[in-house]
């Protein structure tokens, strides 16, 4: 009661700044994350188009490039060191800023309080700080594109010595420094977000919302946050040592290095040490990216197949399995560092075991779809697209997890194809699915469905056209991160394929403008969203469409059932929201349901 009035008062005190800028409301923070993520995604996409132009037409010059890039494309040809920078920043932006902060930040913020039945996050203030740290790090990373010496260019994994010696190459100077500052702030943001998500899920669930009544989205966000809280600090530790190597003369990662014939004083360091520290984060990081997408697709597939998710507990257990295993597989990124072959086979073993929980999830998706009354909304198409990409990319993971094969395939386009499909595109599809599905919840408006279909099919076809041929290039030994494939005869043969990929990538990127148009137009001109547009069971659809502090005007709804009571036999509608007591749905209660009276069984 008293709580209700305080929320009411707060509502009136809001100014423009406190409502739209330094907001502590999780729904507004979710929007801030989403829109920042979209802007970063556009930057990452533009970079990829620029280097795809270079790869597709390495011998031609494009005068418009000089107009856009200035000194980085003199005579209309992209400068090789700037090519490396673009690859680096594209990777960094997509992995961290779009698919970590943009995906997790948006949907954890939006859905955790709404789906568990909480008024806001555990600490709204830390939540706000988390966004603004992310914003600051985005600005610094983007700014690094504009500086005189160019941005960091040692690859998104920033291996020393290129990252540790400011004089190693142009991008190792100020660009690398800005990269490190930006990422340090980013890590702080990710930690503040993560600890908030975990605390909210574990402590602030509404009455009746036990852990086994949680929607799978929340399980995915929870485990993602746990991965982040455990792995980002290790990267932070690694980066601290790197910063000391760069600026303070220590030798953690450096030993016996000559620049321009001159020996450096650094002695006794080990660059492989950095790889250990980096990949201890780096591998969980790819699950930080994909797990929220898997959670989102679980929810969307069950809702739109109008069927309970198949194997709810198996889904949770496989998520926990993936989360646990992700910490003991980092060595598979380092098979060729000269690691002990026995250790390599241990990492190979743990890596291949991940196929088990992944396959459990895949089969559960398919079993949920099986004979469902499928509603092909754009969100559903993207969720099914995710399953397709997850299978395609997952299968090549089994190749790469084998140490003996990886020695051949390491650093080839096979790896590029693998991770772009299984982690990049699949997670991006999860993000699109989430945006289409929860757009009514975010903005109170509906997105245009027809544009959504166009967007899906063009994107889906483009993704396969871009990344599928790369497998064959990789098997042929074409290495990644090369500026031009013209110096060796066997690579020249792939020029036509490269050109095809580039054209597909450009068309696929243009298709994203359909999404952008649809997204921003619908905010203002979209149809008003009904209370529960997808006839979904989860709690977020019980909260009023127009935004308010505290999410629910009166009491927070109580939860009586799991979130997947779709098409329950005996019930007149094909969904029963979580807040409907079992006593109201006697005709559809199963013998095991709590509160069933013995007499009601006879009525079936």
């Amino acid at each position, binding site marked *: 009661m008293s709580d209700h009035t305080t929320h009411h008062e707060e509502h009136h005190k809001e100014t423009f700044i406190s409502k739209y800028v330094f907001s502590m409301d999780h729904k507004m923070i979710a929007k801030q994350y989403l829109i920042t993520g979209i802007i970063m995604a556009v930057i990452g996409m533009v970079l990829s188009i620029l280097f795809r132009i270079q790869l597709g037409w390495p011998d031609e010059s494009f005068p418009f490039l000089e107009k856009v890039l200035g000194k980085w494309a003199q005579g209309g040809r992209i400068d090789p060191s700037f090519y490396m920078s673009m690859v680096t920043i594209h990777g960094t932006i997509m992995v961290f800023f779009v698919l970590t902060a943009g995906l997790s930040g948006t949907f954890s913020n939006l859905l955790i309080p709404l789906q568990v039945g909480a008024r806001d996050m555990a600490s709204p203030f830390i939540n706000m700080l988390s966004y603004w740290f992310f914003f600051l790090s985005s600005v610094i990373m983007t700014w690094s594109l504009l500086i005189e010496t160019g941005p960091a260019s040692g690859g998104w994994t920033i291996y020393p010595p290129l990252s540790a010696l400011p004089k190693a190459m142009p991008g190792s100077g100020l660009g690398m420094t800005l990269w490190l500052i930006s990422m340090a702030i980013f890590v702080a943001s990710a930690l503040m977000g993560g600890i908030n998500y975990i605390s909210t899920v574990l402590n602030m669930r509404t009455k009746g919302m036990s852990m086994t009544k949680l929607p799978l989205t929340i399980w995915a966000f929870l485990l993602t946050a746990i991965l982040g809280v455990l792995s980002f600090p*290790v990267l932070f530790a690694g980066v601290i040592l790197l910063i000391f190597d760069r600026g303070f003369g220590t030798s953690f990662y450096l030993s016996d290095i000559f620049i321009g014939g001159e020996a450096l004083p650094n002695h006794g360091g080990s660059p492989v040490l950095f790889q250990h520290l980096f990949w201890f984060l780096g591998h969980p990081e790819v699950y930080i990216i994909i797990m929220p997408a898997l959670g989102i697709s679980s929810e969307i597939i069950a809702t739109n197949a109008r069927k309970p998710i198949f194997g709810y507990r198996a889904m949770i257990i496989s998520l926990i399995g993936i989360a646990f295993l992700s910490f003991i597989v980092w060595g598979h990124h380092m098979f060729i560092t000269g690691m002990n072959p026995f250790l390599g086979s241990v990492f190979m073993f743990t890596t291949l075991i991940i196929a088990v929980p992944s396959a459990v999830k895949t089969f559960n998706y398919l079993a949920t779809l099986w004979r469902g009354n499928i509603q092909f909304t754009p969100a559903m198409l993207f969720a099914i697209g995710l399953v397709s990409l997850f299978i395609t990319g997952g299968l090549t993971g089994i190749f790469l997890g084998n140490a003996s094969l990886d020695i051949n395939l390491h650093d080839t386009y096979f790896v590029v194809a693998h991770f772009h499909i299984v982690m990049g595109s699949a997670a991006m599809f999860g993000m699109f699915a989430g945006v289409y599905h929860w757009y009514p919840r975010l903005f109170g408006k509906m997105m245009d469905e027809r544009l959504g279909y166009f967007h899906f099919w063009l994107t889906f076809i483009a993704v396969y056209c871009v990344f599928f041929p790369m497998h064959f290039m990789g098997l042929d030994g074409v290495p990644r991160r090369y500026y031009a494939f013209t110096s060796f005869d066997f690579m020249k043969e792939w020029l036509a394929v490269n050109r095809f990929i580039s054209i597909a990538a450009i068309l696929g990127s243009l298709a994203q403008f359909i999404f952008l148009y649809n997204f921003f137009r619908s905010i203002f001109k979209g149809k008003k969203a009904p209370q529960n547009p997808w006839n979904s069971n989860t709690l977020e659809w019980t909260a009023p469409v127009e935004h308010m502090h505290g999410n629910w005007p009166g009491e927070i709804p109580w939860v009586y059932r799991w979130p997947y009571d779709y098409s329950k036999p005996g019930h007149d509608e094909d969904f029963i929201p979580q807040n409907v007591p079992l006593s109201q749905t006697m005709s559809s209660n199963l013998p095991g349901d709590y509160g069933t009276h013995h007499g009601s069984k006879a009525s079936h």
Partner: protein
Amino acid sequence: MIAEETTSNTAFNSQPKKFVTWLFVLSSLMCFAGLTSAYIVRKAEGNWKIFDLPQAFYYTTVLILLSSITLHLSLTNAKKGQIAKQKNYLVITIILGLGFLFGQYFAWKQLVANGIYFAGNPAESFLYVISGFHAFHIIAGIMLLLFALTGTFSKINQTKNIFRMEISTIFWHFIDILWIYLLVFLLINR
């Protein structure tokens, strides 16, 4: 009725925020786990300088242990509502914390005097990085303690007072135990 309020609808519910503190402790711990693991991995590769830890480390260990005791006394007094005693013990804790920091600084000076430099062998650099990063945690801890102390002067209500005391106690005990771990780790893995 009261139990029901604390689970869902009260304006100030300290439980989730205390949990946030624990999670922060966990992430901080992972940071040190990263550093000490890197230490072991690097040491295993050889070319490792062996030297004695500075004497001052043992004195600062005593200081930080004492500070945990005084902070505990401060917390128990806060819970009993004896704010004056709470304040006194809190001030002593802060002084002990500052003493620890000066002690660490003195230990670094001892190291330099013995020819152990930050930009030397990784064995030497690691010692500075680990103890320095811990010192940053002590500074953060002192700021938390000051936050709790200002609360006792500005007459915040008892729930908030205890909440502030509890989060600073969680963090302070953590950095105390962390220091013991780091000291033992450094002694074993010289």
